[in-house]
């Protein structure tokens, strides 16, 4: 690995803004790293080589001309292919959007660019962010950098793998039920789903609008905080983005865990969990205690209803959001239809993959006449109960710690034909989306087979600061960054 690839954001930003390294050199190192590992990892759908070098040149020119470098000056980043990039294809991992070129940047992408980041490419994902293994991409399979015969998790599998493979120090993913946190856990990198409303959804191609949220994955907790700092904040173009000030997250990283009350929910440590995951999270909890946190057993009694509730609400919203893919305004259009109805039918049947069709069907069913009350309305009510569980818990604790995923990375094909077992991969993450809370996964150990294990830190709504505070304190105790995926041979 070249000397410049694999460095964190803080280091890159200071090298570039002091002129010790140019953004172009950093960008070339990142591209070289990508060329060396991509044939094995396949994190990217597309590398935007020429444009990345142009962006890097602009950063260097701005510095030479005396303009103040942005907080991400010269930092190579990867962006999940569900976030619109002006002038560059955005496929959402779907055949139905093959060749679609957005006329605008998603707000979070525009903010990265304005901060000086260099967008290296678009990353692979489960089609329309539906999946937990990235196997539902219509284009390619992304491999876990820790074990190439295993999945990187999903749906932001490409964004997590690109960071874990040291192609970029940070990336953007999106998370509707765990799609940032679960792949971050399976790839051994930190990743955060911010509070609902913290980051603009403008230009994030919708899956389930009441749950979707974009967020960063990075080499370290600090890298994640630096990116969130840039993308967070109100956007007049997203009426659900919160008109709240964005605190200085780098400050919260230095506060330590001393005095924090940390809730440990009994419902998240039940039988069925991989014993190595259970043991790693529990030993991390001991480290949190050593760092000065006070552990408290809590109960989130409606946890067992989270997956059924999530699959009602997320699929109902998806069936409505995905009605827009009709072959009229953009994307794939079936050839030869001479009437409107067959045009819709054939375009959608040809364009969508199996999992997306399954979820559209489920969503259509739970919203259909005769079933609306039994399923959709019921799901909305149980969502209230799940949110209340957290409100009650946060009266006595400042943060909650759970495992991120019940298992480490699984093998390709292991769950892809059994939708229910795939859905259960998200059992510890969906509750946080239903309640609109911030949640972060950080790596907390390796299994005997050297597969990463993640733990999840959950905070109060809009209290990303406390999540970062505990994450940084635990990261310092866990020293996980000493481990590297075996891509470069034995170290």
């Amino acid at each position, binding site marked *: 690995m070249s000397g410049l690839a694999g460095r964190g954001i803080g280091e890159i930003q200071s090298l570039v803004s002091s002129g010790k390294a140019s953004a172009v050199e950093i960008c070339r190192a990142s591209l070289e790293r990508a060329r060396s590992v991509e044939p094995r990892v396949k994190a990217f759908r597309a590398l935007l080589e020429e444009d990345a070098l142009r962006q890097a040149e602009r950063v260097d020119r701005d510095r030479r001309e005396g303009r103040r470098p942005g907080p991400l000056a010269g930092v190579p980043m990867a962006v999940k292919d569900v976030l619109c990039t002006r002038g560059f294809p955005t496929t959402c991992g779907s055949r139905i959007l093959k060749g679609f070129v957005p006329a605008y940047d998603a707000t979070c992408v525009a903010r990265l660019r304005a901060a000086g980041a260099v967008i290296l490419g678009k990353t692979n994902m489960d089609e329309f962010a539906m999946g937990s293994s990235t196997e539902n991409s219509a284009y390619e399979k992304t491999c876990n950098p820790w074990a190439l015969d295993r999945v990187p998790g999903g749906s932001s599998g490409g964004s997590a793998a690109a960071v874990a493979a040291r192609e970029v120090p940070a990336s953007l993913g999106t998370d509707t039920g765990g799609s940032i946190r679960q792949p971050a856990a399976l790839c051994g990198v930190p990743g955060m789903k911010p509070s609902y*409303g913290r980051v603009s959804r403008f230009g994030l191609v919708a899956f389930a609008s009441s749950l979707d949220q974009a967020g960063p994955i990075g080499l370290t907790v600090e890298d994640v905080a630096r990116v969130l700092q840039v993308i967070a904040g109100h956007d007049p173009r997203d009426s659900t983005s919160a008109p709240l000030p964005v605190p200085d997250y780098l400050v919260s990283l230095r506060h330590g865990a001393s005095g924090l009350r940390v809730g440990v929910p009994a419902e998240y440590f039940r039988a069925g969990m991989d014993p190595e995951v259970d043991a790693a999270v529990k030993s991390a909890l001991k480290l949190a205690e050593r760092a000065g946190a006070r552990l408290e057993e809590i109960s989130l009694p409606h946890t067992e209803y989270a997956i059924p509730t999530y699959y009602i609400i997320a699929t109902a919203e998806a069936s409505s959001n995905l009605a827009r893919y009709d072959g009229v305004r953009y994307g794939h259009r079936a050839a030869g239809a001479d009437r409107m109805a067959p045009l819709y039918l054939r375009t959608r049947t040809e364009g969508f993959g199996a999992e997306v069709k399954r979820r559209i*069907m489920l969503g259509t069913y739970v919203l259909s006449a005769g079933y609306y009350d039994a399923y959709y309305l019921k799901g909305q009510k*149980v969502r209230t109960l799940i949110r209340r569980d957290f409100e009650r818990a946060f009266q006595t604790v400042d943060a909650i710690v759970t495992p991120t995923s019940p298992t480490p990375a699984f093998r390709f094909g292991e769950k892809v034909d059994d939708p229910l077992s795939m859905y259960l991969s998200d059992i510890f993450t969906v509750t946080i989306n239903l309640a609109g809370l911030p949640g972060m996964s950080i790596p907390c150990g390796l299994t005997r087979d050297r597969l990463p294990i993640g733990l999840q830190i959950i905070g109060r709504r809009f209290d990303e600061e406390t999540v970062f505070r505990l994450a940084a304190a635990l990261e310092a105790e866990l020293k996980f960054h000493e481990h590297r995926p075996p891509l470069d041979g034995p170290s």
Partner: protein
Amino acid sequence: MAIGRDEVLHIAKLAHLEFSDEEIGRMTRHLSSILDYVAQLEALETSAVEPMSHVESGAHTLREDTLVPSMSREEALANAPEPDRGLFKVPKVIG
């Protein structure tokens, strides 16, 4: 089975999707197993619980009604499968 073949065919029609015989069989099995799992919600008493559709973010949902530039017609049509004289061309809807 929580859902039968005829019902799956009806839902497919509503969703504008078409399936082969084999796919209908598989879809029926998959949806049934998911719905069986979802049925555990019936055990919860929720008659007095308010439903929620989203978590409120304190945002003002209405902006000032001021004119701002928007996407040009050319940009809006740039991805159209069949643009025609500044419009989206579609097959016959009626007749």
